[in-house]
């Protein structure tokens, strides 16, 4: 059977599975349908949370970025897992005790102010829409390969399917569908990694393979990779930094506190049965997330190794010199997977020196010695550009694995992108319909009207994010990182102060959220354009790119969070303290006893 047919079958089967489970679960009791997690074992709940959490950014994009960034890519790994420690300890149990459904609801009640909850809705929408732009980029990549079309067409198809998927609704609320999605996603990620690890190192466990020696050589895979990429003018794999140590520090911090401030993640902890479960379920979620996150660095390093092996055979396994004549493969003899990806426009070859061979190296290297040797060898610039977002999907093809593995990865990528996009759209629609329309503008709206408002807001969100996804502000994972920065600078400090400071008042919280959000957006938009519209960047105004101590816009959320905290404390000091009953409420939230099932459902 040819590859394309196999892919259709796998993707088709996985979709049939999700829909089948949805119908089966629906046929059960209605209370089970709504009490997502209420009667579900914490381990199952952990899997569902993991599926919700791991998106196109984690599945499709992250390992590719790590592959390019090397050591510095660890900021994604630490950032997107370390946040769970903060979430489990600082927020989840207390929000569960508080017993409401949405983040704006908590902020509105704790800071006794509708304005506070409106500001929270604005922060939530900004973060979620940015997040979906990243998902759309990933969805576009997955569909372009899956259907063999350009990535633009891929995004249009993705938009339609995500919309149908989210509006079909229910699905999202069904924990078991997400459990199934988790299983598909994790098998799709780990199976190729096991094969590739075996091929390269003889060790079937990728986490150990990455620390092992190459087959038939007594040099470790990482040491060899360090050597080969340095030969090609790239930075050393195990030490290369994203800009500076400071930037890596801030970037990691930003992702961590952003994780704890993202509404669609926090929402999962509102519905666990007890405060006790809220604490441990974050742990279970992280266990299942870690299976992918500890495999990703192996996928990244091995994909880089295999890519170099493909383009310059012999360099990795037989110590061939990269500058030797005729080492690079001929374009006409390139493997099939390259031809397939060329169709998507995400992999490009340009024969700059006209020798018919593919020279793949870092032509921006600052090493004069390397540049001279490259020029002597007749290289006239890097000729192969590989979009980082295709690495994971192309990985099994690069390693020449069987068709069914490639098909499985396609199904996994789609599962990851769709489950998270749908989850985010749910968060957006509940924020607009419940917190904004019903909570503020039209308290008497009918249930039907509320539902309608929710669906309209979903459609608008998809169109906006799809349109911006056509000219994305970065790779999927980079765009998603911006969303985390926005959540980190606006929502996390407000929620945390709401729990850990009894005296924090509404003036402080509102001023904090607004200033954190504003500072972060100002810096991000300076680099990426106003509201991410290309051509409206204003870098001159802030004195050039990364002008704030070399911090990149993706890492700026941590600075925004600090501004948020500082402004909130200053304003709090000069305005009057919160009323007695609010302080008593904070006392009560801190103690587990007396927690009850969530009310105020919508």
């Amino acid at each position, binding site marked *: 059977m040819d590859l394309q047919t196999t892919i259709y079958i796998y993707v088709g089967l996985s979709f049939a599975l999700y829909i089948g489970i949805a119908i089966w679960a629906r046929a059960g009791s209605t209370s089970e349908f709504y009490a997502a997690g209420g009667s579900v074992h914490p381990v199952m709940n952990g899997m569902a949370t993991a599926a919700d959490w791991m998106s196109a950014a984690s599945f499709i994009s992250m390992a590719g970025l790590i592959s390019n960034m090397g050591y510095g*890519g660890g900021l994604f790994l630490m950032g997107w897992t370390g946040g769970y420690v903060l979430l489990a*300890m600082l927020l989840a149990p207390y929000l569960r005790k508080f017993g409401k459904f949405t983040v704006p609801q908590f902020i509105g009640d704790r800071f006794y102010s509708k304005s506070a909850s409106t500001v929270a809705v604005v922060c939530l929408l900004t973060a979620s829409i940015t997040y979906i732009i990243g998902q759309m980029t990933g969805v576009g990549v997955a569909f372009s390969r899956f259907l063999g079309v350009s990535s633009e067409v891929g995004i249009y198809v993705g938009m339609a399917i995500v919309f149908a998927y989210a509006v079909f609704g229910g699905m999202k609320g069904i924990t078991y569908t997400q459990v199934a999605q988790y299983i598909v996603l994790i098998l799709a990620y780990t199976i190729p990694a096991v094969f590739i690890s075996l091929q390269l190192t003889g060790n079937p466990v990728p986490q150990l393979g990455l620390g092992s020696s190459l087959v038939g050589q007594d040099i470790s895979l990482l040491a060899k990779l360090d050597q080969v990429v340095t030969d090609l003018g790239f930075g050393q794999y195990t030490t290369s930094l994203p800009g500076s140590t400071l930037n890596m520090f801030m970037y*990691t911090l930003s992702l961590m506190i952003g994780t704890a401030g993202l509404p669609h993640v926090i929402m999962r902890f509102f519905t666990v049965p007890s405060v006790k479960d809220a604490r441990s379920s974050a*742990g279970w979620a992280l266990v299942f997330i870690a299976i992918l996150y*500890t495999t990703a660095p192996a996928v990244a390093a091995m994909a880089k190794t295999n890519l170099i092996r493909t383009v310059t055979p012999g360099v990795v396994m037989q110590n061939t010199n990269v500058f030797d004549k005729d080492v690079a493969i001929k374009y006409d003899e390139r493997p099939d997977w390259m031809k397939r990806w060329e169709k998507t426009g995400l992999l490009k070859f340009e024969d700059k020196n006209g020798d018919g061979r593919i020279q793949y190296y870092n032509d921006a290297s600052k090493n004069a010695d390397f540049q001279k040797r490259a020029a002597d060898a007749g290289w006239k610039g890097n000729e192969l550009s590989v979009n980082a977002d295709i690495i994971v999907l192309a990985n099994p093809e690069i390693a020449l694995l069987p068709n069914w593995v490639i098909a499985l990865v396609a199904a996994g990528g789609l599962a990851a992108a769709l489950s998270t996009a749908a989850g985010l759209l749910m968060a957006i629609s509940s924020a607009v319909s419940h917190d904004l329309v019903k909570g503020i503008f039209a308290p008497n709206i009918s249930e039907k009207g509320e539902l309608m408002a929710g669906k309209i807001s979903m459609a608008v969100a998809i169109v906006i994010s799809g349109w911006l996804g056509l000219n994305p502000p970065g790779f999927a994972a980079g765009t998603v990182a911006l969303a985390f920065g926005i959540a980190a600078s606006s929502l996390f400090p407000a929620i945390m102060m709401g729990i850990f400071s009894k005296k924090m008042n509404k003036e402080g919280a509102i001023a904090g959220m607004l200033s954190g959000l504003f500072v972060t957006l100002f810096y991000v938009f300076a680099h990426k354009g106003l509201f991410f519209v290309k051509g409206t960047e204003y870098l001159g105004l802030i004195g050039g790119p990364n002008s704030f101590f070399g911090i990149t816009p993706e890492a700026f959320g941590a600075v925004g969070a600090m501004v948020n905290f500082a402004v909130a404390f200053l304003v709090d000091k000069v305005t009057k303290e919160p009323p007695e009953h609010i302080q008593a409420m904070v006392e009560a939230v*801190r103690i587990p006893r007396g927690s009850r099932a969530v009310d105020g459902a919508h």
Partner: protein
Amino acid sequence: MKEDDNSHAYWKATIGLLTKILIVWFVVSFGAGILFADLLNNIKLGGYPLGFWFAHQGSIYIFIVLIFYYAKKMNDIDRQFDVHED
């Protein structure tokens, strides 16, 4: 106000536990994985330079342990101060 004393002591114990865990959280990720990574890279763990290992593997394993440790200790504290659920 015995009730108040108890809840103050409970909150103090909670903050104490959080502080301990956050120190470990910081040391393994920002410390070993970033600030001291270069230094630790001189030590090898199998084929892994140690600093690189902390950034790409080790900190994640330790995060998991931290959450379960927190959940267990916190339940103990709940019982000790008699504020646990049901």
